[in-house]
């Protein structure tokens, strides 16, 4: 990075960039969550099932996020791993109203955690227990229990209930992720 870039960063004009991977089962609300963070003029009014992936950029208070919004459909889930290597954080979206497929989500999470690229990396994982407005939704505590998150000890994680349609809970979660990533980045720059 050039001198001007560092200067700009020091002055807080240009934010640091991070890559996050957005994963989760199909119809859990990944693209809708990302859509919420986009500036109003770029918002999509209609969200269709993603095929493959989409790249979206948005900013939180301290960081510039590049989000890889992956497709959750069964036949594309094996493609997630192609992007594990370069990601700094993961957002895992759970449909809290879909108790039936919670075990499938758990399976996918376990596979993700066991993957060679991620196993030994201490990367933060943010869980959204999405669709909390739905009548049959379960609480975030119940959700973390069903996903077996209590056994996840080697990575920082956080779960928050959200409603992507209204935006409730989304900023809270991203703020947590921002703090975590900032820590990581600082540690990295100190090491240098």
């Amino acid at each position, binding site marked *: 990075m050039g001198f001007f870039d560092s200067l700009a960063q020091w002055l807080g004009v240009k934010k640091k*960039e991070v*890559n996050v991977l957005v994963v989760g089962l199909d119809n859990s609300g990944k693209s809708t969550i990302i859509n919420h963070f986009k500036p109003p003029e770029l918002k999509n009014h209609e969200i269709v*099932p*993603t*095929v*493959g*992936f*989409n*790249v979206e*950029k948005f900013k939180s208070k301290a960081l510039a996020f*590049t989000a890889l919004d992956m*497709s959750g459909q069964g036949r*594309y889930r094996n*493609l997630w791993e*192609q*992007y594990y*290597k*370069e990601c700094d954080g993961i957002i895992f979206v759970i449909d809290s109203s879909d108790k039936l497929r919670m075990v499938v989500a758990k399976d996918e999470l376990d596979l993700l955690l066991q993957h060679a690229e991620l196993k030994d990396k201490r990367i933060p994982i943010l869980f959204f227990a999405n669709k909390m407005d739905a009548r049959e939704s379960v609480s975030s505590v119940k959700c973390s229990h069903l996903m077996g998150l209590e056994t996840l000890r080697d990575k920082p994680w956080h779960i928050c209930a959200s409603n992507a349609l209204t935006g409730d809970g989304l900023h809270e979660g991203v703020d947590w992720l921002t703090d975590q990533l900032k820590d990581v980045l600082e540690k990295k720059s100190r090491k240098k």
Partner: protein
Amino acid sequence: MLSLKRDKKEEEEGGGNPFNNLEKSSVLQEARTFNETPINPRKCGHILTKVLYIINQGESIGTTEATEAFFAMTKLFQSKDPILRRLVYLGIKEMSKIAQDVIIVTSSLMKDMTGKEDQFRGPAIRALCSVTDHSMLQSIERYMKQAIVDKVPGVSSAALVSALHLGKGSQEVIKRWVNEAQEAVNSDNVMVQFHALGLLYYIRKTDKLAVNKLVSKFSKHTLKSPYAYCLLIRIASKLIEEEDAGSDSPMFDFIESCLRHKSEMVIYEAAHAIVQLKNTTAKDLAPAVSVLQLFCSSPKPTLRFAAVRTLNKVAIKHPAAVTACNLDLENLITDVNRSIATLAITTLLKTGNESSVDRLMKQISSFMSEISDEFKIVVVQAIRSLCAKFPRKHNVLMTFLAQMLRDEGGFDYKKEIVDCIIVTIEENPEAKEAGLAHLCEFIEDCEHTVLATKILHLLGKEGPRTPTPSKYIRFIYNRVILENAAVRAAAVSAIAKFGAHCEDLLESCIVLLERCQLDTDDEVRDRATFYVNVLKQQQKALSSAFILNGLQVSVVGLERALHQYTLEPNEAEFDMKSVPLATQPLAEQKVRDVPGEAPSARPAQDKVAASRQDVYQEQLAQVPELANLGTLFKSSQPMEVTESETEYYIQCVKHTFSNYIVFQFDCTNTLNDQLLEKVTVEMEPAEGFEVTKYIACQSLPYNKPGTTYTLVRLPAEPTQVTGTFACTLKFLVKDCDPQTGEPDDEGYDDEYVLEDVEVTVADHVQRVMKPNFAASWEEVGPENELEDTYSLSTMSTIEEAIKNIVQYMGLQPCERSDKVPEGKSSHTLYLGGVFRGGHDALVRAKLALDSSGVTMQLTVRSTDPNVSEVLATAVA
């Protein structure tokens, strides 16, 4: 743009190609840079260019490597840099065929194609269509439809063209886009209109009626785009060709009206289409030719070239129509563009009259050395047709050809010249001496073995019959001393022919051949030994059979028969008569008469591949009931026994064996609501014939050809060979559903009367060319000679009489005796062939024209008395 400019600078500094010597593995290694964050667009763009370069150089990349590079490339979607993004689209298109899981970019591309950046939308559509497979098509359909009617022309065009490509895999989905394509045809943009029309045509291509409507609709309401007009003209001319319609068709009116369009492109396309049509009269051609004439004086070289090239083609079919342009063509002879000049001259040669030939030939020779081989061949073809047209000019033309032979040139060019000289020699006896002399000179210094052997064969055939045969022997023997084995062998055969034909040269020929027995090559030695021994016998019959007239069986058939013989060892000797005879290719002469007309037909005949008869033999051997009839003697041409376009379309082929005739009926059921079963053709045999077996076609569904056979035993009486058979098609009909083809369980018997099938003398005779008729005539001898005189009162010319005789007898005219020199009132026709059972049959017909018609004295010689009788009565 900036980075591109810089790249260019680097290129200049580096000198030459900066991508030279790229290593595939190192480039793919570099592609990992794509994974870095943040992305450096300039650097990544450069690397991606390298990747594209190696792919386009034909470097093969493994699936795993390609997939890795592809996924690295997908990360470049993060960057908004326009140059990099467009390179990514290219990358996706190139890698979509070699990498796996390319579907991953679908959503990203869909976002781009519906996005705001017009620059990205078109390329994104093209890339999207290259990664989309069948199952995914549904999900992008809506976006494609929107894109087709988009107001940005680039986007609309991209969508239309991509739809065409997608249509190759799944026509069904594309068919649903008709309405959008219709709307796009009304676009103001020339390209969009063209592409939309292309898509519409593609969708309706299989439905003739719909295409008809399409053309008539758009020919009325005016299209803006000249490209679309050109396409419409092509569709219309294809329709005319398919329907075999003449100039009265509304399509033709449309094409003609395009001659008055304001765009040159459309005018040319229309003129070209009219000229290419099959059934056009001189009147229809006139407006098209006059348009082309105008183009001849256009300042644009492309237009001049197009016009003169098209005129050149017309000149072959309708020389008279082009004569009007002669003046303009004369001006083009001096054109700075040599290709235009050559075409102009050759066109003039085709249309010109005898007096202008000398002058034009002089002009051609002035720049012959400046044009490429391809155009030289055009010139040679023009000369060939001139030779046929003006036989008296052979002197000038031959000299010119000889000069061309001496010049430098490739094999195709030399072959064309040699062919031209050979044809001229055969057509025109006056040119023979000069032509042979030129060819002799050519083989003195000929690097092409094929041509040398061809010429030596010709010399062997024609040389002995010239007034001074001895002068050719020197040229031929020189070959034995100087050339390679193949040419030497050909030369030996040629010398033997001189020895067999000219008695006064026999001694010297034997001496020469004896010297050849010391040759280093086996084939040459074998041939020499064989010929020396045959010639020393000094028997006319022997020399005729083994030297002058050669082998007359089909090579493929002989190979098969010998193979069979070795497989089943037999006490008896191998019988040459059991081998099917080589059939004379009938079309050959016709093709030669119109050079350039059907170049595709000629290579097909040159092949020694299995002839039509060999194919039939195989086919019949597959049917167990017909397998043991012996060798197939002759198969007739297919003959229709129903009118075409009736309920059932049937062709009959007659296969003659030594004691049987097999009638093969190739049937097609043209009713889609019927399934026919147990189809046979019942035959009412003529006297003496006996139907022994029907082999039914078990099932004949709609539009799938099937075959049924009827086996007939020939009469025991050898002179009784002709007859007429009444035929009836018998079958079991089952009604069925036209859509599914599912038949009912119950059926009913039905029959259908066919036209009569006739067995003629020609069915019992195989055409065989006797290159030296006189020798064969002596060989057969006068034992079974029959002679009779007929008066053919219905014939008014000798040509007509010859045509009919050849057709009735089914024999091959020998020594070009079927061509009558102009203005002669008497002529002798020589016919050669083999009768069923392997008996040689020769016919000499002396024809004379008088006031009451044609009088014919027919002499038949054969190795079997019955054959002579059959043939002698054939004409009566």
